[in-house]
């Protein structure tokens, strides 16, 4: 069920990872939590498809 959402798909994995960490730099724990929540919602909106989103939720649970 989760195969198609977990195959590698990032254009530049290292750059994205560095950008993600950089985005959190200087934020408090509380601000980081809020940032993450906003980011998840923005990404979810980009995906849109409910079935795919459910697969992502399941994949994040690693079950």
């Amino acid at each position, binding site marked *: 069920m989760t195969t198609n959402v977990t195959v590698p798909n990032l254009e530049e994995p290292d750059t994205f990872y560095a950008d993600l960490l950089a985005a959190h730099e200087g934020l408090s724990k509380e601000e980081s939590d*809020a940032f993450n929540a906003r980011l998840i*919602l923005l990404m979810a*909106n980009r995906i849109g498809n409910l079935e795919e989103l459910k697969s992502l939720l399941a994949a994040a649970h690693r079950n």
Partner: protein
Amino acid sequence: MTKLFEAPLYPYRPSPDEDAPAPVRHPVVVIGAGPVGLAMAIDLAQADIPVVILDDNDKVSVGSRAICFSKRTLEIFDRLGCGEEMVDKGVVWNLGKVFFGDRQVYNFNLLPEDGHKQPAFINLQQYYCELYLVERIRAMQAQGKPVEIRGGNRVENLHRYEDHTLVTIETPEGAYNLEADWLIACDGAGSPTRRMLDLDFVGRVFEDNFLIADVIMKADFPTERWFWFDPPFNKDQSALLHKQPDGVWRIDLQLGWDIDKEKEKKPENVIPRLKQMLGEEVEFDLEWVSIYTFQCRRMETFRHGRVLFAGDSAHQVSPFGARGANSGFQDIDNLGWKLKLVLDGKAPETLLDSYAFEREHGADENILQSSRSTDFITPKSETSRIFRDAVLDLAEHYEFARPLVNSGRLSVPCTYDGSPLNGPDDASLPKRTRPGSTVADAPTGAGWLLDRLNGDFVVLGLGTDVPDRMEMSGISVIGITVDRDAIGQELRDRYLATAEAAVYLIRPDQHVAARWLEFDSDKIEAALATATGRSAP
């Protein structure tokens, strides 16, 4: 000045039943003269079924209580002959503002769909709704319709038999008994009927308190719905401001569960809070204040033999979304015609099981929607609060997040998907009018479609001729033909899509029973049998 809700509207009068040597038998007894009980009685009496309403009170309800009446409710009131009074008095609103903390996050316009007779919503104090329903009953009585409201009649005891219920009633002049072939309990969330019959009331329970206040503003204030998440004047809770007729504004302040109700209700505690909310300079009078407690739950089944439950006695939801009273009217809309067919011997008693099936389904939908709203408004964990706040933050800047903001999903009628009464569908026709759905209103060239569906089974022929009247198994079916050249854009979009013609079988409660691309009386007869519980689909 005597307020409307202080004047006795149906004072106790001795009934001849009280002196009868043996308990008098009535076909239908309704317990509770609230909005749902009154509407139930009107529906039955319009169909010439004698009905007696019992209520321990004699007045309309105190304070505004249920204030948002949905389009579907107004359509039902139209069929009950009192829609116009409600809409004329009510306040139509379309503009809403959403606040988070001390800032406005966005505003919206409901922009209701064109081509419907009734507006999306009106605001009206519950006491006006009850008044117009009582006035409708008085007008029907003047026309000789068999309906009676007995005020000061408190039901003390019930004894169920297989084919009737024995009702013991206490009045100011003593007790008496009567018998009811069918008993309909519309006696509210605390239903004494439910308690006397020792029936369950289960489900997901979460509890909350609301301070509800009616205030009269001395200056102009815009006709808008204002909703606050976590406002400075009510930290970690929500607030709602809504306009009602007569310059009365309704204010709902969520208080949480662990509060001192008596203390919160005192004007010296309420007024400073309201000043903080409305602004120090706004002058107002406090007309009524109350604390309202809710739970989300329903009875496991709404039918117990010859006793049926409707409205809050059967189900309770949070107030977000106006799904309480509005769903109660959908209950009686569903029950009235079925009970008439059973009483007339034209359908088996088991048809009433479909009332339970369909309205339990409706209650589940309302509980789901209102639970989701409650979870958004009152986050139950730190993580859910982080996401809720993220949604509100984003909504201020980005349109995409606005559909996630949940301050209540306003009541819409339930579609009875999977109902045993549903007949054949044709999948090429629009999904919104599939079997089980409410008929969507539209202009027909000869008046509004819903105005032409007046409590009978109807066969609607769009772009194809259907007979004006058919008798099928003792049931009259009315035919309405809309000629091809009279079909406007709304009818086409809602009922035909790309089809040239269609035939719809419509139930007395204005729900679609079945539909086809062409007229075939055998198929209609079979679908009618299904829709009246006389055969499996």
